[in-house]
Structure formats: structure tokens, C-alpha cells
């Protein structure tokens, strides 16, 4: 919550001693309020006042850490409701679910997908970070499944309300900073103690938002604040609305009690796979911090992780790919070379079209500042110097005997300058739009 200068002024000695470096206590207070000075600069401020202030200036939504080592992720810590206002900071984690209520065959198939679905997308490894293990009735099998998740190196989440079983589950996952999805208004005292003892993030569920609010306050009163809030499973509409309302309460209405990340069990809202995929995309957009599906299969993952990467991109920083030579369709020593920029969106569109053309080719991508073709050109980061240096130093001249360099149609104006800098190369002007690349390449290679 923004603190007013006047509120801070009340905590100062009001002596205008100047020891903080400012002429008056009021001037100092105004600077602290705007974030330009630290309250500690005042030697006379009391510890009590400092505590009051840090409480008042704490972020509206807590950042909760889950997982350890390479699996450590932040959840929450968001400051805006819409990404265009600034940026989202903690990407949603995706989860598959297994359960002792399911047959070994079903569980094994989901584990198999967890192993299989792991791919790199613009420098980010994509896989379901969390595995939810749901307890039904078979404690031994449930604990075995949890162990398996710990061993396979994913963040385990035990979904269990029974206190005794929760205690056993907590022992299995105690070193993982996993999630104990256990607290309800009925059992919160016991399971809060279990989560606290085992340093687990405690998942909290209730039938309505007012009950959820109530039980979160009670858990906080017990001294535990490592929480994640279940948006509920009454209906899709209700869960969506709750996700929005929890986040809005925290960020807009400054209600700290709801300043926690949220968890969505799409598999409790529908058992239809397509609907789970659709819901997951909706909750990536709106405020799911952990989103659980029955099974994060490969086709679903391709779409969902791409979407997540998009939504959690900082609007002020474009996504970039590595500046290097990319090969397509078994390019060999006869293949031509296309040129484009390192803006990820451009790369993806262009590379998709080259693949579609089925024509073997290289794609040369110099460091163009991560901008689109025209922007990079206008900014001077995609000029003939940058391009010719890259072609000379990238090793492409050893990879192919072809000396055809195809430049983007939008920078046809560069043709002459590049020709001058690269006299051995034939500089061709490609099409202005990526979708015309397949036709262009097929014609160039005499296939069309």
C-alpha cells in the first residue's frame, strides 16, 4: 500500500536535524514515500516505527517459493492486474495429476507423458513443473506415488485433507518445498502445524471466498504465511470468478489476506480433456499460479507452454533467439541462406515457413537487438555492416557452397550495401511477408 509522506512524517522526531541529508523531516518523509530515500537514513527512527512502515510498504501480494534447486520457482509477487500496466513476474506452473484412486495403467501413462513432454522453446525448458498426487483411500499407494514424484525431480503436491495421512505425506516431501494441499476450515489447525514443521507451502480450500478469507486469517494468526489459495471447484464460472476476485482483492482493494498465489484444479471442474486445455489457457491469462490438468500431454503442452511464454513476457523486453545459423530441412553444402532478425516472433514465423517449404536452407540471424525487421533496420542494428560481419564470422561460408543470400523484402533497400560488403555473394530480395517464403523458396530451387 502506498504510504503518504505525512504518515511517515508522524514517525520522525520532527527536529529537522538534517542528519539524513535532507533539510527538513518533512522533505525526508516525502522522499521516503516516493521511494527515493530509505527510512533507515534517519538515525532517530524507532524500531517500532520501522516495523510499522515495512508492514505498510510491503508488496500487496506475497512471493511464495516452491521447489528447491533447479526446480525453485516463485509464485505470486504480482503488482498489476493486466500485463500492459507493467508486466507479470511469476509464470504459472502447470501440473499433471496422479492418484491412488486411478489404475496403475492410467498413472503410468501420465508419468510417461511427464517424462516425454520436455522441450526447449526460445531458451526456456518446457515441462509440467508440478505433479499433483491426490489421496482417495489407499495410503500406501498414495505415498508410493508421492515418492515417485520426488524421485523424478518434479515439485510434489500432496492433495489430502485427512490429517493423519497428510502427516505421512509431509514426511515424504519434507525436503522439496512442495505443496501440501490440505487446509480447510475444518482441519486448518492441525495441517498448518504439519506444513510449518516440514516447510511446505500450504494449500487452502473453502466453499466460498468469505470462508476462504476467514480461514486464511486464522492460519496467518497461527504464524504461517506460506500459502496458496484454491479457487474452488463448484463450477467453471465460479472458479474463474474466484481467481479474478482473489487477485483483484489483493491488488486493487489492498486486501492482504488474499495476497497469495492461487491454484486451479481444472480436472475437478471437468473431465473433458479439451475443456481442461481451454480452461488452462483462460487461467494462464487470468491469475492461476499453479494450474492442474489430469495429464499435460504433448499436443496440449505445445500450445499451452507457448501461450504461457507469451503472456509472461515482459512487454518492455522483446523475446529474442540466439544469434546464430539455423538449419532447416536437412540443409547441405548446396543450400541457400536466408536472413532475418533475432526477434523471437519473427524467428518463429520465418522458421515455420521455411520448414513448410520443405526446401533445404540455412537461416542466418545476427544480433539485431531483438527487434522486428523494420524496427531493427530503423534502429541501425540490422544494417549492412552488422549483416556482412555476421555472414563472414558465422562460419556459414564453410557450411554451404551456395552464395545466395536472401534478405527480407522489407529491407530491399539494403541490397546494394550488402552486395558491396559481401562481393562473393549474390544478394537476393526475398518476399516482404513470411507466408510467401514457401512459394519463393520452391521457385528459387526450381521445385515449383
Amino acid at each position, binding site marked *: 500500500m502506498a504510504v503518504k509522506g505525512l504518515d511517515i512524517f508522524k514517525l520522525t522526531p520532527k527536529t529537522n536535524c538534517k542528519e539524513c541529508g535532507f533539510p527538513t523531516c518533512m522533505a525526508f518523509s516525502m522522499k521516503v514515500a516516493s521511494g527515493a530515500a530509505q527510512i533507515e537514513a534517519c538515525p532517530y527512527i524507532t524500531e517500532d516505527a520501522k516495523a510499522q512502515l515495512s508492514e505498510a510498504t510491503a508488496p500487496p501480494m506475497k512471493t511464495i517459493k516452491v521447489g528447491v534447486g533447479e526446480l525453485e520457482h516463485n509464485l505470486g509477487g504480482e503488482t498489476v492486474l493486466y500485463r500492459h500496466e507493467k508486466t507479470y513476474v511469476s509464470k504459472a506452473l502447470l501440473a499433471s495429476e496422479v492418484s491412488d484412486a486411478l489404475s496403475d495403467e492410467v498413472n503410468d501413462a501420465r508419468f510417461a507423458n511427464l517424462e516425454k513432454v520436455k522441450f526447449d522453446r526460445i531458451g526456456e525448458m518446457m515441462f509440467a513443473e508440478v505433479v499433483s498426487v491426490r489421496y482417495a483411500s489407499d495410503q500406501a499407494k498414495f505415498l508410493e506415488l508421492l515418492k515417485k514424484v520426488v524421485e523424478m525431480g518434479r515439485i510434489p503436491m500432496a492433495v489430502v485433507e485427512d490429517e493423519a495421512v497428510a502427516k505421512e505425506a509431509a514426511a515424504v516431501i519434507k525436503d522439496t518445498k512442495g505443496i501440501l494441499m490440505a487446509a480447510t476450515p475444518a482441519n486448518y489447525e492441525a495441517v498448518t502445524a504439519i506444513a510449518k514443521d516440514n516447510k511446505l507451502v500450504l494449500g487452502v480450500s473453502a466453499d466460498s471466498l468469505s470462508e476462504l478469507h476467514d480461514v486464511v486469517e486464522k492460519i496467518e494468526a497461527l504464524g504461517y504465511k506460506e500459502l496458496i489459495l484454491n479457487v474452488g471447484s463448484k463450477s467453471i464460472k465460479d472458479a474463474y470468478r474466484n481467481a479474478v476476485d482473489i487477485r483483484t482483492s489483493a491488488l486493487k482493494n489492498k486486501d492482504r489476506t488474499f495476497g497469495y498465489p492461487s491454484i486451479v484444479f481444472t480436472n475437478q471442474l471437468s473431465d473433458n480433456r479439451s475443456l481442461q486445455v481451454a480452461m488452462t489457457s483462460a487461467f494462464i491469462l487470468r491469475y492461476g499460479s499453479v494450474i492442474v490438468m489430469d495429464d499435460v500431454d504433448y499436443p496440449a503442452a*505445445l500450445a499451452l507452454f507457448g501461450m504461457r511464454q507469451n503472456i509472461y513476457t515482459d512487454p518492455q523486453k522483446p523475446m529474442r533467439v540466439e544469434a546464430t545459423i539455423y538449419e532447416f530441412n536437412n540443409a547441405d553444402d548446396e543450400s541457400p541462406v536466408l536472413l532475418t532478425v533475432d526477434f523471437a*516472433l519473427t524467428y518463429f514465423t520465418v522458421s515455420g515457413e521455411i520448414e513448410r517449404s520443405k526446401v533445404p536452407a540455412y537461416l542466418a540471424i545476427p544480433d539485431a537487438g531483438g527487434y522486428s525487421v523494420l524496427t531493427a533496420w530503423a534502429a541501425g542494428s540490422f544494417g549492412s555492416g552488422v549483416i556482412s560481419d555476421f555472414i563472414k564470422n558465422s562460419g556459414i561460408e564453410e557450411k554451404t557452397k551456395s552464395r545466395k543470400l536472401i534478405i527480407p523484402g522489407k529491407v530491399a533497400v539494403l541490397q546494394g550495401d550488402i552486395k558491396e560488403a559481401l562481393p562473393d555473394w549474390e544478394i537476393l530480395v526475398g518476399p516482404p511477408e513470411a507466408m510467401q517464403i514457401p512459394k519463393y523458396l520452391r521457385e528459387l530451387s526450381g521445385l515449383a
Partner: protein
Amino acid sequence: MAYKEVEHKYSGKINECVMGTGEKAITIGGENALPFLSDGESHAPAVGLTILDIYPEDWEEVVIEAYGEDTVKDPVAWAKYIEENTDAEFIHLRLISADPNGQDNSIENCVATAVNVEAATSLPLVVGGSGNAEKDGKLLEEVAKALEGKNVVLFSAVEENYKSIGVAGGMAYGQKVSAESSVDINLAKQLNILLTQLGVSGGDIIMDVGSACSGYGFEYVASTMDRIRLAALGQNDESLQMPIMTNVGDQAWGVREALAEGAKKDKNLERWNL
């Protein structure tokens, strides 16, 4: 402290817009809050299916198989198939053959196709051009004329041809005009203003603010739509209160994820049940 319920009330409201005529006409819009948060007065999004006036050469087999190869050869049969076998709420006919850089089919032929498709089904019709702005301007003008009284959506007017499509569609022949812009709130607003200044009623305009596949700049689409809705609802900006129609099928099969091994051949994927 007890929980204080979050309010989702805004001063603005999205226009209601009727597509088609008769029993199967649909109404879109009416939202008074962000998606899925409106009260009972708003209309659920309508989902339609795209058909082409040429054989869908570039489409993936899996899509063609869903209809049957013979069905997709004939736009009239295709439209009938959709009405009889799916829950699609409208048909989006694209007159690709008009493209001067492709088949360069005559405007008369294309208009005849649109008229035949319209006559063959009772679903509301959305008619798109070939993507060539100049030709589409003339083509959609003639489509508007030939289908007068059918309340079709002309999909879409762009900056280069909004005048002919706006005058013919939105004013002379009483159709709905879609205004297409490329993922930018200011461009969307500008085209809506140009159309209304021309004399097209805001209530007859639908916005196509552009689309992108997930992983391919979808964040721009999501943020543009957020900003448009927040301006329309929160600031009561009338030039942005048009319902949004978006063509998600157009690019979906062009991205590598859709073509990846293990994605398209997965027989476990459910067939879509619209």
C-alpha cells in the same frame, strides 16, 4: 476483517449486434464486464466454422477428413454439412478465388457463390474476401448488394477499402461491417471512427482486432483486447464498444506446433464437437 466482495461494474457496455435473420439469427455483445464476469444480460460468444470457395489445398488432412474430401470441394455442400452435422452458430465463407494473384475469379462468380451458400443454409453468414484489399472492396460491396436483407457480416473492411464496404454494407444494404486492424488499440479505434464518420452506425460495426497463435505474439492480442475492453467499459469509449469477431482458424495450421510430429498424428485427440 471480513472479505469484501469485488465489484465488476463498469459505466460502459458492449453493443449488442444481431447477425443473420430468422430463427437462427444470433446476437452477440452486450457485455458489461470483462470476459466471463458479466451478469445475465450478455450473450455468450458465438462460434462459427470457416469454408472456402476453393478446395482447401493448404489445410491439414485431419481437418479435411473431418468433413470428407468431396464435401469441401463444393462450398454449398460444405455449408449444408456444417448446418446438419455441427453446432456451429454461423458460417464464415471466404471467397479466396477472387485473389488477383491467384485464380482471379470474377466478382460475378464470387457473388453467385455467396448467394448460393446463403440460400443453402439458414445459419447467419459471414463473408470474407481474398485478402486483396482493392478487390475485396469491390467484391464485398457487390456481396452486400446481392444479399440485401440477409443481415450478413462483411469480413472485413480495412483502411484501404473501408469506404466502399462501409457505404454499401453498413448504409445502403443494411449489412454488418467488420473493421479489421492489426493488433493495435489505436488502429482499431481509428477505423471505427472513420466508419462512423462515414455514416455507418456504431451498432452495425464489429471489430476484428487481429489474432495470433499461442506462442506467436499472442501476448499482443491478449493485451490489445484487454485494453480495448477496459477503454470500452471503464472509460465508456463509444468508439471501442463494438463486439469483437476474431478469425482463429486462419493461422492455426501454419505454425510449427500444429504440424509437429506427435501433435497432428495423435489419434487420441478428440475430434472437435462444436
